[in-house]
């Protein structure tokens, strides 16, 4: 059975680079769902609906919109590259920690295996 450590380290490094660096070059257009939800409404410069009919009309704010990592940025860091990148790095590490930890806890214990 080959060691998993190097593969995990390499994979995490790729994920950290994608979330920490490449994420700054992602498209900022609304995604497929959001774009469809906005279609039919007129928006002002502050992105508020000023007229029309669309799925987004009854949208309510996120309950956790003031969280320190809200909208993939770190509150208080004003350089957007740094803010997005660090939020991405935090997200990858937290997701890996929660995922690997959670899956480890519910894993099948091998009976009699070393």
């Amino acid at each position: 059975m080959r060691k998993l450590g190097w593969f995990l380290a390499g994979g995490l490094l790729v994920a950290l680079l994608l979330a920490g660096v490449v994420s700054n070059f992602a498209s900022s257009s609304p995604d497929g769902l959001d774009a469809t939800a906005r279609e039919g409404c007129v928006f002002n410069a502050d992105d508020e609906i000023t007229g029309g009919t669309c799925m987004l009309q009854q949208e309510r704010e996120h309950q956790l919109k003031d969280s320190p990592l809200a909208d993939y940025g770190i509150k208080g860091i004003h350089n957007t590259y740094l803010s997005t990148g660090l939020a991405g790095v935090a997200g990858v590490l937290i997701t890996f920690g929660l995922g690997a930890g959670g899956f480890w806890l519910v894993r099948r214990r091998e009976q009699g295996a070393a």
Partner: protein
Amino acid sequence: MDAQAMHIANGIVDGPVSAIFVVFAVGVLAVCVSRARADLDDRLAPMAGLVAAFIFAVQMLNFQVLPGVSGHLLGGTLAVILVGPWVGALCVSTVLIVQCLLFADGGLTAIGLNITNMALLGTAAGYLLVAGLLRVLPKNPGGLGATAFIASVVSVVVASQGFVLEYALGGTTALSLPWVSGTLAGTHALIGIGEGVIAATTVMTVARVRPDLVYALRRFRKPVALEEVPA
């Protein structure tokens, strides 16, 4: 920065229907946990954590599909191929929960809707296609890549139609359902192509570097016979 709202926000679908889907999602995830245990050994557990972290990272990478419209990977098919259907659904759910609770992406009220569409429907569709396609396509990196691509396109469109069902049941606005369904299917077919390219590249890379870590190559080969034989 005008950061993305990438998933269903609060208030698009009404409270009662959102609540029903929370109950539905929790129920299915409980089944996933119990079925996942059989797959989760000492090696798959950390691998699944990595798959979740990778999906989180790639979901941040919105790519343009039309002028003014972007899309991002959902990850269901990728997860199915690398860690299997039950663990895969849990990986995508983990990402959605982290995004909702820490990044304010995807409404808290809408978490059941988002999990149902992306983690359950998308993953289930991806699984059915992967299992079917690997019966006919060669079990090598090329066959796996083709499988990942086709299954991703279908899986993303299926996930988008999950939203149409939820909107039909509890939408807070009254737009034409055929229009919503058609528009979402069209944009998500394009998003699925992008997802397919990413998923195919990823699984082919893993299949070349560490084929022993690709669930689909180990488990989908001979459905029953090889299950209990350690490699």
